[in-house]
Structures are given as structure tokens and as C-alpha cells.
């Protein structure tokens, strides 16, 4: 079976998104229409600007669909998807660690709640250090195709560097997750 031109696929996605936005999402999720009358005066409603965005998107889709397709138009392959999925998974794992490593450690090993200890060393660094290490060492390892000592070193250096940059000189700046808990 002959595969579709990548620009055609992109055009169909854009047109479908524009149609959903203009016909379903916008009417259901805005309070006012394209314009409204307030105290006897016409004013622009909340739907006009997104409707403009949707219309431009539809025009772009039509131009892509009926315009000349470039012979060397770049297309996505399975490797792109695999790589992106791996990166997202690593960052999400790092985010989960950032958010919960500190509270989990205080729950297990400290007498106080994390909220009370979030300005105290070492508790305040646990989440950022563990999550940051996973993000740096994890992404380096994916690129290298193996876990290496240098990847681990990069993770440790990155965490220390950022703590030195933001946390040590400034009392008001908070590293993740200390502003959320």
C-alpha cells in the first residue's frame, strides 16, 4: 500500500483539530460568543480570538492539502516516537522522584512532616537531587546506549551545580518540590 505524503497527514490532523475546536470545543467551553452586548454596547467575546486561531489553522491545513507537496518533506518514523517516549518517561520518573522522594523519606526516617523540614538540609535537597540525577543520568544513558560512570558523574555535578546556583546564594528561591509542598 502506498503511504500518504507526510504533508497530507499533517493537513488532515490540522483540519480535524480546527474542526473540533471551532464546532465542538469552542461552543462548549467559552461563556461568550464571537461578540456580546454589554450595557447596550457591542464588545468582543471570549470566543473570537480562539476562533481566529482555529480559522488560521484550517487555512494552513487547506494550503498544505492542496499546495505543492515537497518531495523531501520530513516524516516521523518509529525511532522518533521511541526516542521521544523514552525521554518523556525519564523526565516523568524524575518529576515523580522530585515531588515525592523528600516526603517519603521524612515519613520513613524523620519525626516531623516534610513541610516543616523543607528548609532543612538534607531533607530539602532529597527530591531535587534524586529526580535531577535520574533526569541527567537517564537521558545521557539513553543516548549512550548504556549506563556509564560518566553519566552518573554528570548527574551528580548537575545537581550540585544547580544547588550552588540557586539555593545557596538566594534565600527566596526554592528548588523543586519545595514550593509545592
Amino acid at each position, binding site marked *: 500500500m502506498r503511504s500518504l505524503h*507526510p504533508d497530507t497527514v*499533517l493537513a488532515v490532523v*490540522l483540519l480535524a483539530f*480546527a474542526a473540533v475546536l471551532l464546532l465542538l*470545543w*469552542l461552543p462548549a*467551553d*467559552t*461563556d461568550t460568543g464571537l461578540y456580546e452586548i454589554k450595557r447596550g*454596547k457591542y*464588545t468582543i467575546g*471570549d*470566543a*473570537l*480570538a*480562539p476562533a481566529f*486561531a*482555529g480559522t*488560521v*489553522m484550517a487555512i*494552513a*491545513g487547506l494550503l*498544505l492539502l492542496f*499546495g*505543492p507537496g*515537497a518531495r523531501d518533506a520530513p516524516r*516521523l518514523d518509529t*525511532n*522518533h516516537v521511541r*526516542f*521521544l517516549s523514552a525521554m*518523556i518517561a525519564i*523526565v*516523568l520518573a524524575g*518529576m515523580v522522584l522530585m*515531588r515525592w522522594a523528600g516526603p517519603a523519606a521524612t515519613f520513613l526516617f524523620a519525626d516531623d512532616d516534610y513541610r516543616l523540614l523543607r528548609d532543612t538540609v538534607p531533607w530539602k535537597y532529597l527530591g*531535587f537531587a534524586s529526580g*535531577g540525577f535520574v*533526569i*541527567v543520568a*537517564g*537521558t*545521557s544513558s*539513553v*543516548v*549512550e546506549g548504556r549506563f556509564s560512570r*560518566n553519566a552518573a558523574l*554528570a548527574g551528580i*555535578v*548537575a545537581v550540585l*551545580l*544547580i544547588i550552588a546556583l*540557586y539555593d545557596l546564594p538566594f534565600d*527566596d*528561591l*526554592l*528548588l*523543586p518540590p519545595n*514550593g*509545592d509542598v
Partner: protein
Amino acid sequence: MTALDYVLAGVLAVIHGPEAFSLLGIPVSVTVLMVVAGFFAGIVVGATPGLGQVIALAISLPILISIFGFNASALLPVMGFMIGIMKGSTVGGAVPAILFNTPGTPDSYMTTLDGYPMTRSGQAQKALRVAHFSSVSGDTFSDICLFVFAPSLAILVERYLDLPEKTALIILSLSFIAVVVGRSPAKGLAAAALGLFFVYVGTGEDFHPRLSLNAPALADGIPITAAVIGVLVVGSILSELEKLWREKATAGTFTPTSQSGDGRLHWTDIRRIAPYIGRSAVIGTAIGALPGIGSTLAATLGYASGGAFHRRRKAPDEPEFGKGAMQGIAATEAANSSVAGANLIPVLSLGIPGNTAAVFLVLAADTIGGFNPGPGVFRFTSVMNPELVIAFGLFTTMVIANILNWTVGGVFMRCMGLMIRIPKQFLLPVVLLLTFASLYVQQTSMAMIGFALFFGALGYLMIKLGVSPLPFVIAFVLGRQLESTARQAFSATGGDPFFLFSSWIAVAFMAGAVAIIVITVHRRRRSA
């Protein structure tokens, strides 16, 4: 007071302000010290991929205000530091763009197009020197224009650009960037439409946050820094990491780029890039003087104009624009740097910032008090107008930053270039974490990292599909301003649905917006 008295008073306010310390018996004022500190800090943040002036300004503003307080004497030191950051980071911003293909700001996106190919062909040092020379030349030209023409230009801009014209001008800028950047006008339009769509999520004037799907995370809208940094920086980092991943998978090892040549900027090089710098400096200064448009459009216009000039003039052995032409770097850097000076005209006379960094100047003036950007600033009165003195004081801080740029800026900038020796497979993940941490410290919410990851993935997909992320970013930055100006223009014209055609200037802008799309699509169709 005459105009010259005002200039002198502004210069003296900076030089003879409160003394910080004395150097060989010469007193150094706090303002001068702050400009110097801001300038070097600016180069460092600009050169550090993932940081950039917006984050630096966002972090430094509250710190500066807590140091200097809320009185009029704090204005020059605080704003001087911010101007130092703006100038330093504009020069430093070329470093990650050239060395790592990761633009720190939207302005330096076009620098990547020729800078990174030069790095890959072993000419990183030369590319950095071209960027520095062009940037400082453009900046100096713009500052001279600012000093000489600011008051009269401010009056002109105020007289001819009313709300309908400003709305039409934003639409023209969007359509220009959408169709000129990248190889496909349709994809550029799609990127701009996506940027507009995302910026309108959760915003609006109604009680119900539009398009938010009742999700609390979307109810306040998508943070601008998370979206812009996500698409530009995180997307570029992911794209670069993927290239390394494929390289390792196919070749079994990473191919290091060896640097060749003396890396110096010779007189013959300067002669080759001078016409591009001159062209772009004029474009950047003209664009900078217009309200709400900004440096990214200037960089794009400068690059497009330089590209057309290069096609006619280039020698057969010279690379084309986008393939490692140093003229491409010169055109972009001169244009985006020359906006900085002229950009103060709409910022000071109308309170409309031309780029995100200028927003912080308005914010600083607003927070500290004693200086209200608006039509009153450029009023030459016989009784002293203190706001005009501050305006000329700000111009003086720009000149000081410029002198630093000419003398030590290049050396300091190239020192930052040593980062190229760190293997990219380790450096880029560190930059990724630094980007996430920098976003977090601004709003202290894990949602910022989540947004940056989402927009980073979107930026990655856009790059892989051949869609330039720049129209997305510009549409996101200008989207809210477009809507609010349109709302005001609609009200001001008494609900006239044809307000965009209410004057010949607005009609010309709108016609230009449509014409540029039609002409570009037609040309691409003929060349396909």
C-alpha cells in the same frame, strides 16, 4: 531646560549618582557598578543554554527591588542592571545558538541556521567573533539613533499608530513571520495558529476560563516562559540528543567536531559582512521603534533581507544562507541587537514593550514608582521633567554597556565558548535539568516542568516535521496583546466591526498581511 541640558542631566545622574566605591581616586557610582555587574551576568546567562535574559530578569527583579527599595533613586541602578543583562545576554545568546544549535531566546533562532553549520565545519571561534562584531555594531548604531531621534520618533509613533493600526501591525508581523520563516508557508501558518490557540487557553475576560476543560492547571492560562522555553530550548535539546542517539546507534561512537582555521575575524571578513550589518542595523532600529513588535521580527526581517541580498551578491565558493554563511549570522545578530536601543522608544513613550525582556523594564518602573512610561516622558519642558532625565540616564547606561561590549565583551563571550569541549551527550542533559530548575524557581510549581516537557515534546515534533517553532513562539508572545489591542480598538471605534480598515495605515498593514501570504504561496507553488 534645553534638550542638551536634559542629556547632560541624564549622563550626570548616572556618573555622579550615589558612590559605590572609589577606583584610583575616581568615584564609581552604584548605577555604573550595576550596569557592569548586569552586563557580565547577562553574558553568562545568555551563553548558558537554557537560561537566557528572560529568566535572569525574572529572577533578578525581585532581588534588586529588595536591595534598593521602592524609591525613585532605585530606578537607575535597578534598570541599569537590567539593561546590562539585556545587552550582555543578547551577545552571549549567540553562544549556545552557534555551539549547540539551541537558541537561548527566539531572537537567536536564526543564528542557529548558519552558526551551527559553521561549528560543525570547525569554525566555531570565527562564528562567535562574527556574532559579537555584528551584534555590537548593530547595538551601537541603534543607541546613536536612540539618543538623536528618540523624542521625535516617539511623537511620530504616538501620532500615527492608534489602536486599530497597532492591531493590524501585530497581524502583519504574525503573517510575515509565519510565511517567511521556514521552507513552507503553510507549516509556518499552522505553527502560528497553534501558538495563538495555546495562548488563548484559560485566558479571556469571562468568569469561566475558556478552553480550560475545567482543569485547574489550565484555568490561569499557560505560563509564557514554560511554553516558549519548552518549544525552543527543550525541543532543541531533545532534537540534538536524538541526533546523537542515532549517531551512536549507527556508527557505534560519537563523531567529535575538530576546530580548524585561526578563528580570527580578518579585515576581508569585516568587509564581506559590513553590508549585511548595515542593512540589518537599519531594519532592527526601525522595527524596534514600532510598539509591540520586537526583536524576533527584526532578526527574521534582517535575515530574510540579507538572504535576498546574498543570493544576488555571493561568490560561487561561498556557502548559501542556512548552510554556514557568516553573513547569515551577521544579518541576524546585527538586527536583533539593534532593536535593543530603539525598543526603548515605545517602551518609554507608550509603555508598550517590544519583547519579553522589555516587559521587565516596564514592570520595574511600575513596581518602583517615580517613572511612568507614557507620552509624558519625552516632554521637553523649561521646568525640569524628572522622567526625561531618567530616560536620558537610561540611554547613558546603554552607552556604558556598549563600551563594555566593544572592549571586554568579546573576550568574555569567547571564554564561554569553552563549553564546546564538554561532550554533548552529558552537557545537554545538564542543560535540560538547568532549564527545568530555572523554570521552577520562577513560579515554584511542578506544573511549570510539566508544561515545559509538553511543549518540549511539541517543539521536538515540530522540528522533526519541518515546522519552524519560531512562528509558534511569536504568536504565543503576541497573542494576548493582539486580543487586548483588538478589544480596545473595537470599543474605541464604538463597536465598528471594520475597525481594522478604519484608516489608510491599518488598511495598508492588513493588505500587506494578506499579500505576503498570497505572494509567498504563489512563489513556492511556481518553484515546486
